């Protein structure tokens, strides 16, 4: 906050100088970008054809007639801009797009948008939410800005997604210099790493699997048992934070030859074992004992039995105070500080040693490497289908506003081998296979989805035409119609109406308030305003946090903010730099004025009925206040359902 107040006067000064130069640019005669990337390649086309064929088959099987393709490509252009840049397109971009006569212009513009820095920044913020959440975290150990910058850079460089994920799981070093480690430090709370949180997040974010609630109810994946969860958690057990940042505390691990296992017998601790513990700086009181776990024992715990448990009872020493864990790994014997093991469950009642393990695909874990390296290899292993299904589902969600598998949260996909849902999720496998075959290329995944039939379909459907006359349907007919509409949406046979997320609403309002594109080339002042405005607005509008792909309707405070908020007032005011004011200045006629306002806010031209009404309003206002009429027009456009719902 202090930084912000200190910066603002400087920014204002800079802004005023620059704005005058910026304002004289007329956005109406912009040329299309000179060097658009080459048209989509045949390989991409065949991937899209595969997806389209799969959908066609599904629709035919369900007896559904999909909506026609959107009449005007500007509608799809708007969807793309909202999905990839978080704003509606600027007038400048609309003009450039419309003057592009290439029949494949949507594919070319998708590639152009993906190459834009705004895509990297915007997608980094979106994906970052699933990796590090939205909590402020512990500032000393966690820097979200660094993490998002790093992620943005990975996207800008189009790094393979599996590599990005491996770097997050295995990162070491300081969170400022090695920003990937913020994935780990985000889970640092109450002076320690929350390893359960890390394991849960790893599986949710990267594998689209919620296992944290399997114990509470009859979860479809209830076969992910607690022990399996602990086995995953144990992969993070060596994770430490010190002056050099995040590291694996291998130093705490003492190795000796397996021959020394002879010294491991139940009962008082042999001197040789005591020495091992001392070398690990593990102080163990005289009365401590060693207990074997398992049959045959490959692990022991060193514990101080509680006084009321005089007799040791192997793994059932429930109230013992565990001081160390000793384990045979291959031809070595290793001692661990129990703090770094997931040994005691939160209730503290059961002592259990969980060695690192995975719930399936054991063979995907490499033999060598740190625990975290093994986990990263397992998570991203080419045969781990959950990995590509999860990202396909999430990217689909970011493109449409709701995940492909919309029956559950975006990070709660069914088991890939579950026969009940196999058909429903076959598209995710299709997208996933193409993603894997192309080196986990996120941009390619976006391109395939953007070119696929469902993304190109209209959001209206002739089946709803019966309601257009205004006559009431019978209750039964209405219910049947609603069922059909729901089925069309479920099968992606119509583009769904999805409420814009807060950052899309503010991004769109800000963009509509300017005629030129707001991006990294924009004036510093405009960018600063955008940054602070966006933050404040999202804060007031309500940030859905990690649940941003959940479907929800608007709230009254949001409607009030949009209708009456300071920000809306400023943006709709017909000032010399705002769109409402500039449109009046640059338009030669009232119809052009209206058309421009529609393009700027709704990315389309007015219908005949709309033109009738608003031209009358604007003409009539010639006798009154034209500025007020434009302000009212913008207010109306901002508050329409069409503005706030992606369509």
């Amino acid at each position: 906050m202090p930084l912000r107040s200190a910066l603002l006067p400087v920014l204002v000064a800079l802004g005023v100088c620059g704005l005058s130069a910026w304002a004289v640019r007329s956005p109406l005669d912009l040329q299309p970008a000179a060097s658009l990337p080459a048209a989509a390649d045949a390989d991409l086309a065949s991937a899209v054809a595969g997806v389209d064929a799969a959908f066609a088959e599904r629709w035919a099987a369900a007896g559904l007639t999909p909506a026609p393709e959107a009449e005007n490509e500007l509608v799809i252009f708007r969807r793309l801009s909202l999905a990839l840049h978080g704003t509606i397109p600027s007038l400048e971009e609309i003009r450039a797009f419309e003057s592009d006569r290439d029949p494949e212009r949507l594919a070319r513009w998708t590639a152009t948008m993906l190459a834009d820095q705004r895509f990297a920044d915007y997608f980094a913020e979106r994906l970052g939410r699933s990796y590090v959440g939205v909590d402020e975290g512990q500032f000393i150990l966690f820097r979200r800005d660094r993490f998002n910058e790093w992620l943005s850079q990975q996207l800008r460089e189009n790094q393979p997604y599996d590599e990005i994920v491996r770097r997050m799981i295995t990162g070491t070093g300081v969170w400022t210099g090695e920003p990937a480690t913020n994935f780990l430090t985000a889970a640092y709370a109450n002076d320690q790493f929350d390893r359960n949180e890390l394991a849960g997040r790893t599986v949710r974010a990267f594998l689209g699997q919620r296992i944290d609630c399997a114990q509470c109810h009859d979860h479809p994946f209830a076969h992910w048992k607690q022990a399996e969860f602990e086995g995953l958690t144990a992969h993070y057990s060596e994770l430490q934070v010190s002056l050099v940042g995040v590291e694996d505390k291998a130093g705490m691990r003492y190795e000796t030859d397996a021959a020394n296992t002879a010294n491991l017998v139940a009962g008082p601790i042999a001197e040789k074992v005591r020495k091992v513990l001392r070398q690990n700086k593990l102080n163990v009181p005289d009365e401590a004992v060693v207990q074997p776990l398992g049959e045959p024992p490959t692990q022991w715990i060193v514990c101080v039995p509680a006084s009321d448990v005089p007799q040791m009872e192997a793994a059932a020493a429930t109230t013992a105070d565990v001081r160390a864990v000793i384990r045979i790994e291959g031809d070595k014997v290793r001692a661990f500080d129990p703090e770094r093991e997931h040994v005691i469950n939160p209730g503290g009642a059961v002592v259990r040693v969980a060695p690192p393990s995975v719930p399936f695909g054991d063979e995907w874990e490499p033999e060598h490497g740190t625990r975290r390296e093994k986990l990263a290899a397992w998570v991203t292993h080419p045969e781990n289908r959950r990995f590509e299904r999860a990202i396909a589902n999430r990217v689909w969600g970011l493109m449409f506003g709701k995940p492909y598998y919309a029956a559950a949260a975006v990070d709660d996909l069914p088991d890939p081998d579950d026969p009940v849902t196999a058909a429903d999720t076959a598209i995710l496998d299709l997208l996933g296979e193409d993603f894997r075959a192309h080196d986990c290329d996120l941009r390619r995944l976006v391109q395939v989805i953007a070119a696929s039939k469902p993304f190109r379909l209209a959001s209206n459907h002739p089946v709803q035409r019966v309601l257009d006359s205004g006559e009431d349907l019978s209750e039964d007919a209405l219910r049947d119609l609603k069922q059909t509409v729901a089925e069309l949406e479920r099968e992606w046979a119509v583009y769904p109406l999805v409420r814009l997320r807060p950052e899309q609403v503010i991004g769109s309002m800000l963009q509509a308030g300017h005629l030129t594109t707001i991006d990294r080339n924009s004036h510093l002042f405009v960018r600063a305003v955008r940054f602070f405005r966006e933050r404040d607005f999202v804060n007031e509008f309500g940030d859905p946090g990690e649940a941003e792909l959940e479907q929800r309707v608007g709230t009254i405070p949001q409607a009030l903010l949009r209708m009456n908020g300071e920000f809306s007032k400023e943006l709709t005011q017909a000032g010399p730099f705002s769109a409402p004011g500039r449109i009046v200045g640059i338009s030669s006629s009232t119809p052009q004025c209206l058309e421009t306002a529609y393009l700027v806010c709704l990315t389309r031209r007015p219908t005949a009925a709309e033109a009738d009404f608003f031209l009358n309003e604007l003409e009539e206002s010639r006798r009154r206040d034209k500025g007020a009429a434009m302000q009212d027009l913008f207010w109306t456009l901002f508050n329409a359902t069409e503005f706030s719902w992606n369509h």
Partner: protein
Amino acid sequence: MFTRRDALRLAAGLGLSFSLPALTARAAQQRGAERPKSLITLWMAGGPSQLETWDPHPGTKNGGPTQAIDTKLPGLQIAHHFPQTAEQIQHLNVIRSLVSKEGDHERGTYFVQTGYRPDPTVVHPALGAVLARNLPDDSVQIPLHVSLGSGAGFVVPRGGYLGDDFDAFRIFEPGRNIQNLRGLSNDDRNTRRLQGLDVLDRAFRRERAASVDNTLHQQVVQRALTMMDSDQLKAFEFADETAETIARYGDTRFGRGCLVARRLVETGVRAVQVVLSGFDTHAQNFSGHETQAKELDPAFAALIADLVDRDLLASTIVLCIGEFGRTPQINPLDGRDHWPNGFSCVVGGGGLVSGQIIGATANPDTTGDAAAMKPSDPVSVPDLYATLLQTMGVDYEAEEITPVGRPLKRVDGTPLSRLLPG
């Protein structure tokens, strides 16, 4: 010239069915224990020191310079910064043994507001949201769950899995600015705007009328317009309060918040939070708390006195609480750090008993860790909330099905029988 109400009527004629609920005799006009219950939470953001508020330990080294004063409640002494509250606190109860495991502001706030520790797969609703959801009142046109005052974003209580509708409605400057609730004052233009919306809506509905109905966009706009038109908005302002009353609460943001809170409760609002920030006294703890008390003491005392005078205390629970307490030890900067292991709150009214003093913390000079400093008779936040829900007539044990299909109890606690009558 026509009025806003005419404008709405005209809009209704255009096919936009704006409607105002009938203002018949409302339950909120009742008094005494029969009245529907409300909750006012005075949220002490940053974590107030128990030693400098409701649990002073004078005469000890770590107790610092804070003195204790007698109160109207025999046997209860509180910090000397609160002479006015000392005159009213007998109407409430003091708990000195709250315990939590969350020592971070954001996590601690989440826990104390919801009764659940943070869980990345589900957002739990704050207590106020649970109340607004389970104790609805159609005659109230303004939000049933309101947050007054400013603070970090996470301080505003959320609806969580109950839905954004139950997020607290936020007013940053209580009594001064009911932001976003006022539209244009020009009714002619307002009507034109609504007509324009109708024109746009008709175009958008073409071949998607059923889908558009599912968005509920129009209904939400209508409800917002109803609220903008409601006389009940006056509850957010205090043009009709005397200067003397405003002065009694203290003309501070928090004081005005407490006064607005009383007015909102009178209007039937279910849950109100008033935020007082500035308790995070890692340095200069003692002067910091003196400053805080100058705002808290008059406002708190005036609020209780007013609720008693107006026969509203029997139906209004007042809870003064923060995300955690502060360390018994004094750090080298003369400050106190975060301490979730034993802290205080004040709670009462709304049908709870009064005059109870629950739990006690150890002498702050006791050396040792959290275990050694464990308070006697510890009280968990979920137990406290189970008590409040039960008192307010909400089944605290009922399970809500979260959007992901996971059933969760409203509160995972057991009511404290000592706070319940009989």
